[in-house]
């Protein structure tokens, strides 16, 4: 066994352990030197990325991996803590680590003038570790624990600008909503444990029978995770917290939100994968019912998100409402793929939804970074107060145009590639849904053209004569995201073939997920 094999074997544990270790190291290091701390945080993320790359090459080539904590030979497997990594997890952790790297590069300059940065870096690394944990774990209770850690840490980070009352308010709303949600998840986990004496997802998926209690569990898990992902009408915490958190943090919180979305996928496709298409309700298979419920909520999300974004005056809040709409597109694709399970366009829809997950993270993230750069340069949040910034902030303007086109789904940027797949597949389920989605996408373009006009064009206001371009690290971060957006836009096939297709296959093929655990013990 070579060193490389050993590293790959232990990669699932190390991917979570290294950011966790780094998080506790931060307060000690920042007593020594501030610059050293920033470099250390970045290198920790790079190291995590290296392990993710190692793991990804192995999992994509050889199928799911199992990592069992604490013991080599298993006497009673059901109570062991285990991580299970399949292609879907690989897809998610790749997104998370990319977002984390960009956020840390961005916060080098953005957070420079604030104090309490040792705690900031600790919390950021904890948030990254918990998000990675949510995506790697193969155990419902650990999922809950990581979810709660990410709630607590995100709440503390949202309240980072503690001198603003609104930040505190947003953080309080976030913690109330998410802790109630997490408690309901714990209740659902208790119900599962009471029936099947098991906590790990694969064992549960194998023995699940869709009893009365399982229905309760399904509803609880889907609704709570949907709320954490920002599904209308449970989305209201999202604009509050996205709009008030520091933009670099927002990027990582987007990652945590997407991890909740991943939870929905895991629950529906893997945990309930065996039973959904067999059980009946209203003379319909339950998967059709679940699919149409998700589609209905998704369409409402798209419409409400876009319509509300149009009238926002606060730039970051506006982008947050656009993020709600983007989450709606993802749920639309997923709902279609569940409702039409087995038909050829279901796979297309699933691939489109997953690709859109990546694109949403990048596009919305890029817009938040640009909004943060504007805030850094002008110290103004409201759109009415800013004007004519394109004269002094040339690079930022270019990045905003890229983000604008990408988020509105204009060719040839990445947003179009995924929305194209979603439109085409949803059209085969029901044309009206597709038409609504396209109309809302056009409205989204109109909204961001308005933002572009208001912030970058127009006369030069006297207060902004000597506004400076954003510092270099922020430009680098924005450039990285923009570059990725263009790359995925021009070569969507490369991403789909290497990451998205295996992930979609892993979701649909839940028998493999189950047999990895049952066979591996």
């Amino acid at each position, binding site marked *: 066994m070579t060193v490389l094999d050993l590293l790959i074997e232990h990669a699932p544990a190390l991917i979570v352990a290294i950011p966790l270790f780094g998080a506790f190291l931060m307060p000690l290091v920042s007593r020594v030197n501030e610059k050293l701390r920033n470099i250390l945080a970045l290198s920790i993320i790079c190291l995590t990325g290296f392990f993710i790359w190692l793991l990804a090459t192995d999992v994509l080539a050889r199928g799911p991996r199992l990592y069992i904590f604490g013991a080599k030979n298993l006497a009673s497997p059901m109570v062991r803590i285990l991580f299970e990594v399949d292609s879907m997890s690989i897809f998610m952790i790749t997104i998370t680590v990319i977002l984390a790297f960009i956020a840390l590069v961005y916060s080098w300059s953005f957070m420079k003038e604030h104090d309490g940065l040792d705690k900031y870096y600790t919390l950021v690394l904890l948030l990254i570790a918990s998000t990675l944990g949510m995506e790697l774990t193969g155990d419902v209770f650990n999922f809950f624990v990581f979810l709660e850690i990410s709630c607590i840490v995100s709440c503390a980070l949202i309240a980072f600008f503690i001198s603003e009352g609104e930040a505190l308010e947003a953080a*309080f*709303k976030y913690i*109330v*909503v998410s802790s*109630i949600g997490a408690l309901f998840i714990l209740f659902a986990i208790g119900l599962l444990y009471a029936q099947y004496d098991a906590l790990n997802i694969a064992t549960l998926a194998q023995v699940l029978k869709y009893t*009365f209690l399982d*229905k*309760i569990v*399904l*509803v609880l898990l*889907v*609704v*709570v995770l949907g*709320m954490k992902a920002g599904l209308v*009408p*449970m989305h*209201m915490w999202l604009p*509050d917290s996205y709009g008030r958190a520091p933009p670099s943090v927002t990027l990582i919180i987007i990652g945590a939100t997407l991890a909740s979305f991943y939870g929905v996928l895991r629950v529906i496709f893997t945990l309930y994968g065996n039973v959904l298409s067999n059980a009946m*309700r209203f003379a319909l298979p*339950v998967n059709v*019912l679940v699919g149409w*419920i998700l589609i209905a909520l998704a369409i409402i999300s798209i419409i*409400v998100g876009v*319509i*509300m974004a*149009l*009238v926002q*005056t606060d730039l970051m809040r506006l982008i947050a409402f656009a993020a709600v709409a983007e989450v709606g597109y993802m749920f639309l694709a997923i709902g279609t793929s569940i409702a039409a399970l087995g038909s*050829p*366009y279901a796979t*297309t829809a699933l691939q489109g939804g997953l690709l859109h997950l990546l694109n949403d993270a990048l596009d919305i993230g890029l817009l938040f970074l640009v909004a943060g750069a504007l805030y850094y340069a002008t110290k103004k949040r409201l*759109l*009415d107060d800013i*004007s*004519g910034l394109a004269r002094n902030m040339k690079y930022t303007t270019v990045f905003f145009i890229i983000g604008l086109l990408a988020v509105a789904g204009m*060719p*040839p940027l990445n947003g*179009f*590639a995924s929305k*194209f*797949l979603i439109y*085409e*597949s949803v*059209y*085969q389920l029901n044309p009206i849904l597709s038409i609504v989605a396209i109309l809302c996408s056009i409205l989204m373009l109109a909204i961001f053209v*308005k*933002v572009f*006009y*208001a*912030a970058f064009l*127009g*006369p*030069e*206001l*006297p207060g902004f004569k000597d506004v400076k371009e954003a510092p270099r690290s922020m430009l680098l971060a924005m450039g990285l995201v923009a570059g990725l957006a263009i790359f995925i*836009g*021009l070569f*969507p*096939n490369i991403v*789909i073939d290497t990451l998205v297709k295996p992930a979609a296959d892993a979701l649909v093929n839940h028998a493999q997920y189950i047999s990895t655990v049952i066979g591996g013990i």
Partner: protein
Amino acid sequence: MFTLESGSGFWNPLLWILIVFIAFLLLYGIRGFGRNTYKKDTEQTKAFLSGNKEPSPDEMHVKASNLYWGFTTSLNNVYTALRKMHTGNTSDYVLWFVIILAVLFLVFGVM
């Protein structure tokens, strides 16, 4: 390799860029047929406001909240309803969650 198949259609970004490039070339060619009467730094380039003076940038600036006035006014009913929904009250956030939970319980036949 660069063509994205969706089962019923396809999307090729490079092809698209090629077409747009050709379209731009054509437009540029058509533009060359026009007459060039534009002269820099003359009266011609100034805004004509019926002889009035040009106002200061502050007054001239159309604020973001005034854009799309027609759209928001015609959808006034929708906006009133949505504003009523977004109360900003934390209890209401949780209430929506409980309502969705209850509705789905009904749909799935738990209650």
